């Protein structure tokens, strides 16, 4: 047996990259703009991460607000327990998505966003109904609360694993006949296709660098963690910044940093320092838990477990299959983008993707974090587990938690399963050697 079997060493110095500072500043600036919007007469559009039309919204000079991001931020800031409790007191079922309840609770508690500033009310609820049934109900609920108009964009599901012309036409028709007119109405501006094209071209540039960063994890050791670290990397492109120059710069800078890490042969940075000894390479399916995000990450980092690929970092767009926003067919490309988001893919496609990740990223195994809130992800994961295990011959692991409900994060239970899982990989290696 090799001497590899010592625990992954986690250095103690807290590190913050330049790119991370830039992202922080971008987010702060965005929330400042949102807080000032009512005063300055700027209009806001609430919308969802999967299938977001950020370039289009921005081309009308409108500001996007993403309730999912606010909910996950509430989770990370320890506010979600009270928000969820409040929503349940108001009659929301304990069985349903905690993002929704967290958002409703936040709204009922004064709608103060992650930076401590008040969020503006929506002028439009852009219901990009992509890959998640709950979105539909979420904005019906918000529609009642705010008495705001809703623009529905029904994005058909890739039930047969393909995007057909008919599906594309349907989305483009809705963009033309429903979404754009709604944006025109609230912004008072006409649709400007050139403005949209410019933004789409910038999106493609940033996407190119993002994919490079994510694929850098194919190296050994991986310079990044593509799940816990990955959620930071996808931040700008999944939210308010896709199509902006800021995003282009962010990804250029991020790429340069990763190139630097590779040159030095360094592993990923975690909040507790660098992982110096990569012991396990994992592919992870499912969203992370946000209420104990750092503790959750530590459970991996302490064991030298590095996530080399994840599906969660594809919910706001799958780019590592070659898709890029294409300024030459602006509405069609938006339609393709929406339909291609991870939770809009059928289960056989998701299995194929995981199988590909396990092979291409030379993973020791793959792990599913099954979250109670999200049936779009979770329903069928046990079958995915068996299927990927069968196809790759690598061991699968299964843990359960929730997005932002701290009542569903049992640290001891998860740690127990993770340890057993890591030891199983280790033992298999030793047995196979």
């Amino acid at each position, binding site marked *: *047996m090799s001497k590899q079997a010592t625990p992954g060493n986690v250095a103690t110095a807290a590190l913050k990259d330049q790119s991370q500072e830039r992202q922080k500043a971008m987010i702060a600036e965005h929330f400042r703009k949102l807080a000032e919007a009512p005063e300055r007469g700027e209009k806001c559009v609430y919308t969802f991460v999967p299938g977001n039309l950020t370039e289009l919204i921005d081309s009308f000079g409108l500001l996007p607000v993403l309730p999912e991001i606010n909910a996950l931020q509430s989770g990370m800031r320890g506010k979600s327990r009270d928000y969820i409790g409040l929503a349940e007191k108001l009659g929301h079922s304990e069985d349903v998505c905690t993002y929704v309840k967290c958002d409703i609770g936040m709204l009922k508690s004064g709608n103060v966003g992650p930076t401590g500033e008040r969020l503006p009310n929506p002028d439009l609820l852009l219901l990009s109904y992509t890959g998640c049934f709950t979105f539909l109900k979420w904005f019906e609920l918000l529609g009642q609360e705010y008495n705001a108009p809703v623009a529905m964009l029904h994005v058909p599901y890739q039930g047969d694993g393909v995007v057909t012309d008919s599906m594309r036409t349907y989305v483009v028709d809705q963009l033309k006949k429903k979404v754009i007119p709604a944006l025109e109405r609230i912004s008072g501006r006409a649709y400007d296709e050139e403005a949209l094209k410019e933004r789409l071209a910038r999106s493609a540039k940033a996407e190119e660098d993002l994919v490079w960063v994510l694929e850098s994890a194919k190296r050994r050791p991986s310079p990044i963690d593509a799940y816990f670290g990955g959620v930071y990397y996808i931040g700008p492109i999944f939210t308010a910044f896709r199509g902006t120059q800021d995003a282009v710069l962010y990804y250029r800078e991020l790429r340069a940093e990763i190139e630097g890490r590779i040159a030095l042969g360094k592993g990923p940075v975690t909040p507790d320092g660098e992982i110096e000894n990569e012991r396990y390479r994992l592919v992870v399916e499912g969203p992370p838990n946000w209420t104990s995000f750092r503790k959750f990450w530590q459970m991996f980092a302490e064991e030298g477990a590095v996530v080399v690929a994840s599906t969660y970092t594809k919910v706001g767009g799958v780019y590592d299959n070659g898709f890029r926003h294409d300024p030459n067919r602006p509405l069609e490309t938006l339609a393709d983008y929406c339909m291609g988001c991870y939770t809009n893919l059928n289960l056989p496609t998701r299995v194929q993707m995981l199988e590909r990740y396990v092979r291409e990223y030379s993973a020791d195994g793959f792990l599913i974090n099954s979250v109670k809130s999200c049936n779009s992800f979770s329903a069928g994961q046990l079958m995915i587990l068996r299927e990927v295990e069968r196809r790759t011959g690598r061991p699968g692991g299964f843990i359960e938690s929730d997005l932002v409900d701290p009542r569903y994060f049992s640290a001891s239970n998860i740690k127990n399963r993770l340890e057993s899982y890591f030891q199983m990989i280790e*033992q298999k290696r030793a047995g196979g050697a």
Partner: protein
Amino acid sequence: MKIDYCVGIDLGSTTTKAVVLDGERRILGRGITNSRSNYDVACKVALGEALINARFSLIDGRMEHDGVDAERRRELLTRFELAFREQQYRSQLAALRTSLHQHAERLAMGAATNAALERILGTMEQETGELYRVGASRKSDFFRDLAGSRYVELAEAIARDGGHAFDPLVGLFDKAILETENSTEAVGTFESHARKAMVQAGDPALQRAVTKVLSIELVQRLGVGTGYGRQRLPFPEKLIRSEILCHGLGAHAMFPGTRTVLDIGGQDTKAIQVDANGIVTSFQMNDRCAAGCGRYLGYIADEMNLGLHELGPMAGKSCRTVRINSTCTVFAGAELRERLSLGEKREDILAGLHRAIILRAMSLLARSGGIEDEFTFTGGVARNTEAVKALRLLVKENYGERKLNISPDSIYTGALGASLFAWREVSRQEAEPVEVPA
């Protein structure tokens, strides 16, 4: 003379188990104790018990070597063990007495309390000989249970006579028993108890064997810990293994043909697949709710006013299994009462409950990859005949014929696996010397 051993300790939610292996990887002894707030002591006591057990088997071997026949050996050993346990009990009772008085004094409870305590303890001391008479039955092997139940009975009697209020006496006991069981001294040493016991047993062949075994030094090479409480085990991190791995390896050691292991314990259920070497290839555990675990049966037993061990036999009388759809521990009582009010028979309901538990286990097994031949069933629920019956039936219906292994020592499966890991680590170190944590 000296014998090298390795130990595996499984710190469970209700009991802590230890298995001691000799250099040939043969089981030398097993020990069990109730888990308690001080994990360190729980481990030490379990190990102590395993070493006592090991010495008993060495004594047996010695007598055999000396030509004592089997029947005589069994008789002598029984006598010796009872005498030994009596000494152990006395030692713990003495520690309990000291602790009780200290607490009474600290709380300034006065002379009446001291008198009451003395009445109780005096009676218990007097009864000790009878408790460990050959052929006497004891409710438990754990001091806490044994002493606790008698103490409470006696305190009740005193309260009835108007001698002393009941609650303060029980309050004192609760404090004192914690102290007693969390102290490693209270239980005394093997040597002192054994010397007294061998005199008590009064047989020259036994005395020779005991004296010989007392001269043997048992030397621990390494210990590996596992179990639900393993994060808090007094072992260096490198010497802690997940209970899943230990169960897999332990089951493999007991039944080398094992490919699938089902463990239903008090708090969780595990379905494990192992390869030909006992290496875990996949596993599943129940989710955060304890539905369908051993604890569920505990609730049912409480609800029906039965002992846990009585459930299986009663269910065995059923001719018509009632369909129970919920294994939710919270609803178990309500469902039970509703069924009873509908006129269903107790045994039929119980048969249904057992089947429901096994159905939950079946789904975990299916999640983990099904049931391969051979199939080993471990954990507390494996001792329940009705659960085993339901399991056999469902396995046959869904997977066809499978050889089902159940060991009477299945409670030690995890500890056995851990002890094998310990030897494995020793061999590894011998082959490739590296720095070992103390």
